[in-house]
Every structure is written in C-alpha cells, then in structure tokens.
C-alpha cells in the first residue's frame, strides 16, 4: 500500500471510533459536566457555580444514599465473587469437556431476559403472597405469610442474581487458561488445598477476579430497576436520586451533578481497587 493509501485507510478506520467516542461519550459527558455547574437562580435564569455540588455535600440524604449505594454495591460484588468463584472453577476445571459448554451456557440464561423480567420473577417468588411464602405455609413451616420482598436483602439477592454472570464469565475465561498442571504442581510441591487456592489459583485468576469485580461493581452501582422494584421503603439507590432529579423535580442541573458524582465515585472505587490489586484496566476488563 502506498503511504497515502495507508493514511487514508487509517483515517477511515479511525473515523467511526472517533465519532462514537466524541459524539456519544465525550461531548455528552462534558455536557453534563457543564450542566452540573449551572445554578438555577430563577425560572429560566442560570449562572455558573458549584451550588449543585454544595447541595450534595450539605444534604446528608444525598451523600448517605451515595454511600449506601456504594457500600451495597461492594457487598454485592463481594457476594458475587464468593458465590461465583466456585461455580467458575467448577465450569473451567472440574466439569467434563461437554458439561463445561452446557454449564457455561446455563450461566448465561439470566441474560435471556431483561432486568425487568428478572425482577418481576423475584417479586413473584418473594412477596408475602408469593411462591416461597405460600410454599412455606403449605408445608406448615409458618402460619402466616412471610414478606421476603421490599427489604435490602431482596435487593441484594436480585442484584447478585443480575450481575453474577458478569463475574463468572471472566473468571471462567482466566481459569480456563490455567493449566491443570499448574494446580497439580501446587499439590505436588506439598501444598494442601488451601495453599493451592490461596497461593496459586487466586493469584493466577487475579486479572479475571478484578475484571469481574469492576464490571459487577459498576453494573450494580448503576442499576436502577432492581433496587427500585425489590427495594423497601427505606431503600434508595443513587440512580433513583438521579432519576428523581431529572424526572420528578425537573432539576437537570442537580441531576447532572449527581451523575458526575456517581461517575467520579464509582471510578474512584475502581481506581482504588486496581491499585490494591496491582492490576490495570488493560489487562483485566479489556481481556475478558
């Protein structure tokens, strides 16, 4: 290829990427950043300022909700890891070759339906007149119905359910890359199961663990339907606050500030996580 042709083709390949990132990601985000620094002083009168952020800082409801969202998201991430790791390990290392593909596909089953239907399913199961409560009554384990819905536990169950496959998939793919001989070498050199897990399997799977945790954390912190539909009267989620700002209060400026804050907060958590685990975005999320 001649130089010019190469340059032209580079430009042609670069254009879609640039348009996408610029028009749909960068400028819109700069847009909400700008919007978030607009204070409303009277109907249709705005001026530059950090009032929306000040509002966030001075109003405990908001930062409490953000902290709550963050800490519950961490909890969900942790649970997804604890629950998902053995499953991923089973799929990658223990199941037979055939079963492996089938199990992997089964893990993807929740993806077949939307968040909404998943939450709907949980509602049907968990509510006081739902399947679980009724079954317990029917078995005589309880007299009156039990409400499993509308509390933080329900939200956590629903969130773990929704995100767990995003934990399992990267774990399976990194564990897949680990030869059985690595584990056997761990035993052969005298390690017991715990040592092998702690010193070999987990360190080896670290990029997958981190990738899974990042994606899961971000998804959880950014989720909307599940906490709303399954959550109780005390549960507010930060995305719900954003929604409220935008929709119920027509307060785009405030909502934009909240959006920026959510983004900063979650990015900060991810950054700290990467720091602590000594990984980078490129060798974790990018690889899965």
């Amino acid at each position, binding site marked *: 290829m001649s130089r010019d042709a190469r340059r032209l083709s580079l430009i042609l390949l670069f254009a879609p990427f640039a348009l996408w990132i610029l028009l749909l990601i960068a400028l819109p985000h700069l847009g909400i950043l700008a919007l978030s620094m607009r204070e409303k002083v009277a109907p249709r009168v705005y001026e530059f300022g950090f009032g929306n952020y000040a509002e966030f800082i001075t109003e405990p*409801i908001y930062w409490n909700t953000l902290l709550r969202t963050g800490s519950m998201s961490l909890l969900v991430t942790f649970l997804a890891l604890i629950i998902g790791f053995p499953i991923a390990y089973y799929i990658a290392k223990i199941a037979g070759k055939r079963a492996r593909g089938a199990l992997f596909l089964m893990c993807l089953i929740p993806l077949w339906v939307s968040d909404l239907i998943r939450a709907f399913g949980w509602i049907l199961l968990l509510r006081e007149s739902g399947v679980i409560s009724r079954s317990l009554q029917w078995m005589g384990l309880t007299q009156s119905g039990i409400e499993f819905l509308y509390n933080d536990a329900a939200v956590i169950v629903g969130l773990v359910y929704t995100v767990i496959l995003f934990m399992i998939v990267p774990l399976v793919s990194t564990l897949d890359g680990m030869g059985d001989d690595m584990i056997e070498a761990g035993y052969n050199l005298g390690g017991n199961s715990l040592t092998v897990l702690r010193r070999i399997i987990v360190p080896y799977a670290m990029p997958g663990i981190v990738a899974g945790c990042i994606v899961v954390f971000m998804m959880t912190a950014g989720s909307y339907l599940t906490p709303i539909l399954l959550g109780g009267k005390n549960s*507010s989620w930060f995305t719900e606050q954003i929604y*409220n700002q935008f929709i119920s209060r027509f307060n785009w400026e405030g909502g934009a500030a909240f959006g920026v804050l959510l983004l900063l907060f979650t990015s900060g958590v991810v950054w700290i996580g990467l720091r602590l685990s000594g990984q980078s975005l490129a060798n974790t999320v990018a690889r899965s």
Partner: protein
Amino acid sequence: GSAETLRLLTWGSYAPDALIEKFEEMYPDIEVEVTYSNNEEMIAKLRATGGAGFDLAQPSHDRIYAPQIEYEIYKPLDLTKINTGAMSKVHLDAVLENTTIDGEVYAVPHQWGTSGLMANTSLAPDVSGWGDLCDSQYAGKTSMRLRRTILLGTAFAMGEDPFAAYADLDAYQDLLDRVADELIECKANIKAYWQGGDDLSAMMLSGEIVASETWDSTAYKLYNENPDIVFIPPETGALTWIDTFVIPAKGQADDAAYKWINFVLDPENIKIMSASTGAIAAVPGGTELLPEDKRAAVSAAFSDEDIENLKFFANIPPGVEDMEGKTLEKIKAATGG
C-alpha cells in the same frame, strides 16, 4: 402509508384499545400511538424534547402553569376547535382558571377523580383520615405512594391548608418539614410505598395490606373484585384532580389531537373511557356514564357531604415542585424502620 400519527402521552388506561380502534376506524388516516406516563414523566419528557415528540398530553390541571412558565412546553389551544360546550362547567372553569397564561388557554379538562384512602373494611373498619395510615393497629399493613399527594393529605390531616401556604414559600417549607417528620415517623407502620396501580392492587387484594392512600379509580376497580374494599374520602376532604388535554409546543398533529379531544367527549366513548380509567368524565352527569359497578363503588364511597368537601389540587407555583421533591427524597432516605 401516508397515515398521520397521533402520539398520545397519557396515563395508563386513559387510552383503551377499544377506543383507539374505534377512533382509527372513524379517521382511517390517523394512527394512534400511546405512551403511558404520569405527571412528572410527562413534563420531564416534554421538557427534554422542548415540547416535541408528542402531539397530545394529559397532565393534571395543577401541572400546567409552572412548567409552561419555566419550559414553554405547551402550545395555546384553539378553543374554537374543541367542543367545550359538552364539558361540565365547574371543571372547565377550574381548568381555564389554572391554565390561562397571558390570555392564552393551554388546557381543557378530560377526567377527574380524587385521591384519598382505601381500606378493606372487614379488616380495617376504622379508617377515616390520612393519619390513620400511621395508626399502629395497622402496623406493617398500610401503604402510600411517596408523591406529593400524601404530603398534601398529611398537611390537611395536621390541620393545615397547604394550598394556602403556597403564597409564602418559607412557610410552606416549614410546613413541609413538619409533614416530613410525621411521615418519617409513619414509615415504620408502612409495608411498602406503592408505585403504580398494580402493586397496590396486588397488595390489597392479597390482604398483604389493609389500608392505603390511593387514587379513587384504583379503589373502584378493587371494589369490583372484593366489595369489602372501598374508597374512603378522608375526613379532611378528598383531593381532587382533573386530568386535562394539552398540546405540546412542537406537536405535529394538532388536527388529529383536536379530533381525539372531541372524540372522547362523545357520551358513548366516555362510557368506554370511564370503564377503563375508573375516573369520571368532566362532562355534565359524568358519574352517570360510569359503568354500573363503578357507579356503585362511587356511591358507596361518597356521601353528599364528601362531595361538598372535595379539595381541588391548587396550581403549583414554580419552585414548589422542587421543594416537595426534596422532601419526598428525605422521607424515602430516612431509616424509619
């Protein structure tokens, strides 16, 4: 083909399929596309579009003035194209009064109803006022929608007149703070906040809750399923809303919109409409056009006294929406139990 589309932004059940089919039969060139929404979302959507994207919307009468001042999302109506004569005068006047800005009229009434209480009388015989939702004898068995209606109702129950307080926003803020304290305390008593009609119906029918704040229309539907479940106008007065018709600022099918407005004023169509919404058409004798069962439910619910005592939602001045929103957030976020 060349069919025009009427994009209708309205409440769930305000556009029953039967009626749409009938309308489309009558005007074969028009295709109706419905988006279900509620007051907040309607305004939010129109704000996002600068009044584009829809050709006809149905916010409640108190939600027109302030948004129009602030966002210019509606366009003035040409009353000559609307069969205002068929509308009941009280409602028309109320709406015109609330939605005339600089001499231009922005809305006409469609259906009205009330927000109040609902109770299963066999399980909760003593529900009469907003405050009863917080009565500890129904602990864990009541519900409400965490929206402005309950703020207003609670204010009335506390012996205040929130609409009067609109005049002095500082006073109103003070009132809101007290309402918030009340409702936060009440949280422990509540099973869950309902969101739309559905979850409320399910909880009520299954007996998971015995009393709730509600739209009357929801209660009427349930009365049909279980006659123990009745609408109860609170002793301080049921809050009355009128859902209206407005044309968004950049609507593109005004003619079709006017056709729809006039179409649903036809008594035959009102019957179909009211059967679906459970609300009462803003026409003279609107109650008569309710289906049998609903009419029974209404008369079971309302005494003449109650009718006297109806409280119309007052126009929301700019800024109030935001104050109320924040109060609601505060209640939601509080860990009450």
